[in-house]
Structures are given as C-alpha cells and as structure tokens.
C-alpha cells in the first residue's frame, strides 16, 4: 500500500507537525507500506495527483491541515484520509463553534464570550469588559479562537491585563475567545474509533500553568497514564469526552481536552484536537500505549479506519 504522510505546512505548529510526521513515517515503513512524505506547500495538490497514494495520513497541525481544508482537497482527489471528516474538522478547529455545539447538547464547557477583532473598533466591545469580569471572575483565559496548540493562550489575572492578552491572542487568529478559568486537573482523553483510551493527566513540573513549552518538551511536564482518578470521576470524564466526540461528529481518532474542576464543577470540556500531536511526548501515543496499542498498531488502525475497513 502506498501511504502519503502530509506534514509540515505553513502553520505555526510546523515544527511539531514535522516531528509527528516523521514518527508516523517510521511506523508506516515498519508496517511494510510504501511512504510518500509530503511537506505541504503550494505544490501539495499536484504532488498528490502525481504520487496517487492509496491513502493519506494527515499529520498537519493547525490551520490548513486541521481545519477541513486539506480534508476537502483530499475528498476532491478521491484520496481517503485519517482522522475526522471535513465538518468535524471545521468544528474542532473553531473553538467557538465547538463550544456552541457542546452547550447545545448539554456538554459542560466553561462559560465564554468571543469577538472578532473588528468588534472592538466597530461595536465598542471593550465597554463590556466590566460585565465579562463580573460574570466570569478573574483570572480570565484569553485564547485565539482557531489555534490548535497553546500558542497565544494567556491568563489575565487583573482587569488591566485583559487588553494586552487580547492583542496577543489576536496575533494568531482574527477572533478571540475569553473564557472562565476552571481550576483543576488537566486531562486528555484520546479516542480511537469511538473507544476512549486511558486518560492522561498532564502535570507541569515547574510552571503552574500548562504552557506551550511544557507541552512539547521532555522533562517539563510529567504525564500520568492512566490518570489517578476515582472510578466515578474517570467514568464521568470519559463519558463527556465520548459525548463530545459524537456531538462534533468525529471519526478515526481525536483527543478531547478536559479540565476536571472541583466539587460542583466536574469535568469541563475545553476543546477537541482533530489532529492531535503524535510526537514522542504527545498524549495520544502515551494513551494508546497504556491501552496496549503500540504506535505502529495505532497507525495501522488509523489507516484501516480511513479506508473504511
């Protein structure tokens, strides 16, 4: 079988994507398939036509690869691909739309408000800061609406810090999401073909917040898998994650990030990554392994799912 691995691209997560892609290539070679590695650029479509792969493994993170664009192109070319389909990709990449969908079906997600950059200039959105702070309390979490990783995520501890945090977030996207902060444990539920894998807990070693650096570096964050949770807690977390997977129409594999708040708060879904990181330190491979699924078996299963097997 001839497998195209799509990686790199122009997104800000290029470096991470190259690592994910390289690891997937290794696995596919080990599985005895033929690999065509493609660094996504302006020749992507012509390369795909030329190479004519049987299936594509999407290891692109961030806009372009994770937002339905590449998925649409692959469907046009009739090439099956790994991970969720177009509409689920669109929803997962857009944190605001995803939250609306979750809220509509009763999935707990932290309170939020979202604005386009123009709302401040054209609608005086900044005059509502007082209400946002009164409603959500401090700190506020400020993030770009459509960026997959922790890039551009800021915590504004006092009202004066909110505008700068918004300026920062709007460097990554044209819309900003302002969210109620949920104190708690940071959990990730990886899902393969509708089955939840063991829950991973990320515990930062140094900083008190799970930041971009810690997320991608060995030794900066400790991962516990399976996370040490009571049965009821674990079941509740797994249930909301599976409900989210279903509500957003995911397929193949994906990762649901959940904050487990204290009493009365419970699990709150933050977002879904439709192309989660597959690097040495990424959470999905850790979860798969804890379930007794080697990285190669995971890749094989993802390809089978793409081919409808």
């Amino acid at each position, binding site marked *: 079988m001839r497998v195209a691995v799509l990686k790199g691209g122009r997104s*800000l997560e290029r470096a991470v994507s190259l690592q994910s892609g390289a690891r997937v290539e290794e*696995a596919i*070679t080990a599985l005895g398939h033929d690999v065509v590695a493609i660094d996504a650029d302006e020749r992507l479509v012509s390369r795909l036509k030329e190479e004519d792969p049987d299936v594509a493994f999407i290891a692109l993170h961030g806009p372009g690869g994770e937002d339905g664009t590449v998925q649409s192109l692959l469907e046009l070319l009739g090439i099956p691909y790994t991970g969720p389909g177009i509409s689920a990709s669109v929803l997962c990449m857009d944190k605001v739309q995803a939250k609306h969908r979750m809220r509509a079906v009763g999935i707990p997600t932290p309170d939020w408000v979202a604005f386009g950059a123009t709302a*401040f200039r054209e609608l005086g959105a900044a005059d509502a800061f007082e209400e946002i702070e009164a409603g959500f309390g401090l700190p506020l979490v400020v993030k770009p609406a459509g960026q997959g990783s922790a890039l551009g995520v800021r915590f504004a501890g006092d009202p004066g810090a909110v505008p700068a945090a918004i300026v920062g977030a709007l460097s990554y996207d044209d819309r900003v999401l302002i969210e109620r902060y949920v104190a708690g444990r940071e959990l990730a539920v990886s899902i393969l073909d509708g089955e939840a894998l063991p829950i991973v807990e990320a515990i930062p070693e140094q900083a008190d917040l799970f930041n971009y650096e810690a997320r991608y570096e060995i030794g900066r964050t400790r991962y516990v898998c399976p996370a040490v949770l009571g049965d009821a807690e674990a079941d509740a977390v797994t249930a909301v994650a599976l409900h989210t997977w279903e509500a957003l129409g995911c397929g193949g594999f994906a990762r649901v990030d959940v904050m487990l708040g204290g009493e009365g708060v419970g699990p709150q879904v933050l977002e879904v990554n439709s192309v989660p990181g597959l690097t040495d330190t990424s959470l999905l491979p850790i979860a798969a392994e804890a379930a007794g699924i080697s990285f190669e078996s995971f890749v094989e299963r993802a390809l089978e799912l793409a081919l409808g097997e």
Partner: protein
Amino acid sequence: MDPARPEDETGRSPGGRPHRRSHTTSADVARYAGLFAQRTTVMRSSAMRDLMEITSRPEVISLAGGLPDTSTFPPDSFAAQMTRIAQESSAKALQYGPTEGFAETHEVIEEVMRAEDMRPDPGDIVVTTGGQQALDLICKTLLDPGDVVVAEGPTYPGAVPVFCSYEADTRQVEMDDDGMRVDLLEELLAELDREGRRPKFIYSVPTFQNPGGVTLALERRRRLVEIAREREILIVEDNPYGLLRYAGETLPTLYSLDGGDYVLYVGTLSKILSPGIRIGWVCAPPPVRAKLVLGKAATDLCTSTLSQYFVREYFAEGDWLAYVDELRDVYRSRRGAMLRALASYFPRQATWSQPDGGLFVWATLPDYIDTTDLLAKALRENVAFVPGAAAYADGRGSGSMRLNFSAQTEEEIVEGIRRIGAVVGEQVGLYETMTGSFEVVQPEEQDDPSTSSAARSGGDGANPGPASGDVLPFHRKPLRD
C-alpha cells in the same frame, strides 16, 4: 518496497531507504528523560524556536538572522585559493592540526587584531570553531553550576543558551545609548558582595552590541576595565563587529585598555570573511589559555585544518581589508535603508537604536505588545525578526525585537519594515481602541514633540549622526564615573 520508486534511486544505501530506527514509545521517552543531565532542563527551547522554524521559508523576508552577505565574496578568488591548497598542500590540509591552531592562523589573527590597535601575544591565542565555541569553552572552563555571569541586558541571543547549559545564574545589566550602565553594574556587584557572591566573568559585546545596536562609551570602557582589576573579575569581550563601523570614531577595545590581564578577548572571521569557515579565536592569559586548550581538545581536537589553510591563503593575498571596506559600504547603505524605513513605517510609540556599526537595530514597542506573539502575526505577512525575549535569560525583553540589516537587499529591508510596521500599527490601534486611551505610552524624554520629530527624520542613512536619547529604548541617566 518497490525498487522502481524514485525515492529509492538516491543511492544512499543498497537497501534503498536509509535505515530508521523504530523507537520512541513513551517508555523510551521516559527512559531517556531519566538519563538527561539536570542542565538539560534549563536549556532554552520554546515556542519561539518553533516560530523561527518558519522564518527560513523562501517567501519570508527574514530580518531575524545575523547572517553576513556572503554573496559579495568573489567566487573566482575562492576557487583560486582552494585550487592552490589542493595542488600545494593537499595532504597537510586534509590532516589533523594542533589544538590551539596553526602558527600561521595565529599570525592572521594578530594582523586582524592589529587593525583594531591590539597587540596580542601569539602565545595567548587559541583558534576556535567560530566565536561561539570560544564562549562555550570559556563557560566550560570557568563555570560551576549556579555561578554568576553578568551580561548586558539585552545580550547576544546565542550566548543565552550557552550560559543556561552551564547552569549559570545570569544577571543582566541594563544599557542606554552608551552601552552597559556601568553604575548599575557596580550596584549589582555590591549587592552580590553582600550575598557573598562574585561573578566569574562579565560578558560584554561593547562595540555595536548584538542585539542592542549600541556602543560602550570610552569613559565606561575605562571604568569597566578598572572594576575588573579592582575586583579581580574577568571580562569576556566579544567583538565580532569592531571592523564594521559605518559612522563615528573608532574606540579602543577593552582588551587594549586592559592589556589582556583580566580581559578574555573573543574574535571571529565570520563577519569580515565568512561564517561558513567557522574560524574564531580567544586570547587569554596563559593559565586560562591552557585550560581552554584542554577543553577544546576534549570537544573537537582541533579547528578545521582545511579552513585554516583557506584563511592562510586568503590573507596571504594581502587585500583582506579591501573586502571589509566593500562590506562596510554595502552594510552602511542597508543600515540607512532600515533606519529610513523605520522612521516611515513604525508607529510613533516605537523607539529604536541608531547603530554606528554592526548588523542590528534594536526596536522597542509599547509594553502591551509581546513580540513573540507579534512574530506569529508578522509571519502571516511573510516577514520575520528575533523577539526580544531571546536576548534575556530571565523572561524580560518581550516588548522589543532585533532587526538585522546585513542579510537582505535594501528593497527587501524596506518592504520587511513596512510589513512589520503595519502589524505593529494594527496592534497599537486595537489596544488603544480597547482601552479608550489614545495617550501615548512613552519614556519621559520623548514628551517633547520636537525631539520626536527629529527621531522620525534622524536616520538619513549615510550619516545619521550620534545616537540621541530620544530614539533609544533605554532610559538615559548621567554617568556616575
């Protein structure tokens, strides 16, 4: 595997595809993590590094690197020199050489240092693999974990990971338009005294500082050297750009003021000949030099013999200064283009240095703009710079950026600055809209509109005149010395 596939025809190995090990289960990762030395946890590497990955794409106008323009070097002369080496010294040029470098390379180094009025003892010189290795060897020789290193704030971004990897406690002393604030340095040393600590060395790029673009004033040079003597602290003077002066008077190096007792001098041919040949050096008093040589032997035995032969041939032709002149002309014009573009395209809230030489301008924006975030936005417009946080070991610098003017043509520089100016302008506008405050956040000395307008028109390129406080990000205070 199908042998007819094009990727298999690269001839890399009889089996086709190069062998790739299968590894990296999370158990492997955990096992490696358990093996890593403590110092690797403080090695810097970050969101910024991932963003920098994108800056090398061909469509990006990169004002990020510190690359000299090697396209100005005549290929014919390069070919002739390499041919001569092959014909006359093939066996020797392909052999190992002495760890401290060839005597002929030492002579070249003496000649280069003489061009800046320095008279080193050839016995003090160690040839290194670029100036970067000199920094690494100095740290390897002098630093125990937790030792204090004093540096300028901001400092050379490439020095930060070196200090971090030797687990130094890096303290950075603020600069103004006359370089490191030596009065603040003395305050810091007094404070360290009270803690019973003493820095192992003071690291300085006194001339056309990278990234600050400022030059340490003569009186401060004298005082700095005196402080080193009084307190018996070493100074590491890193001087890659001294010969690339485009305006103003030449100043004596710290090394020449001190005579080489307390100043370890680090030089390089990277900016006046080629960074690809990796030839740098350090001049150190004999006891220190002996340790540096041992350290170098452990690291790489010797600096590339072939490169040293090339250097010998190149300097034997005798007109190396003519090439430096040529580079100076090119960079002077590019500096002018950048300063003019900054005046045209950066918003009034921004300030920047007016370098008399070197390769960099340091620009500072209002503090609500984080230049790492800004880089993400700038990359969407296909332009890049180095975020200021890279020049600090302690997380400061997020409001500033380093802009390089040696690696791009004047047209590219102007276009690059225009694009950065546009994204900065957008962020300033957004912030002002949100805060409802259109008051300009500026250092005090910028309150006078007449000086501000002078700053706008200050860079006429060829001769922007002496740097003045109103165009610099630093707070000017009277010198104590």
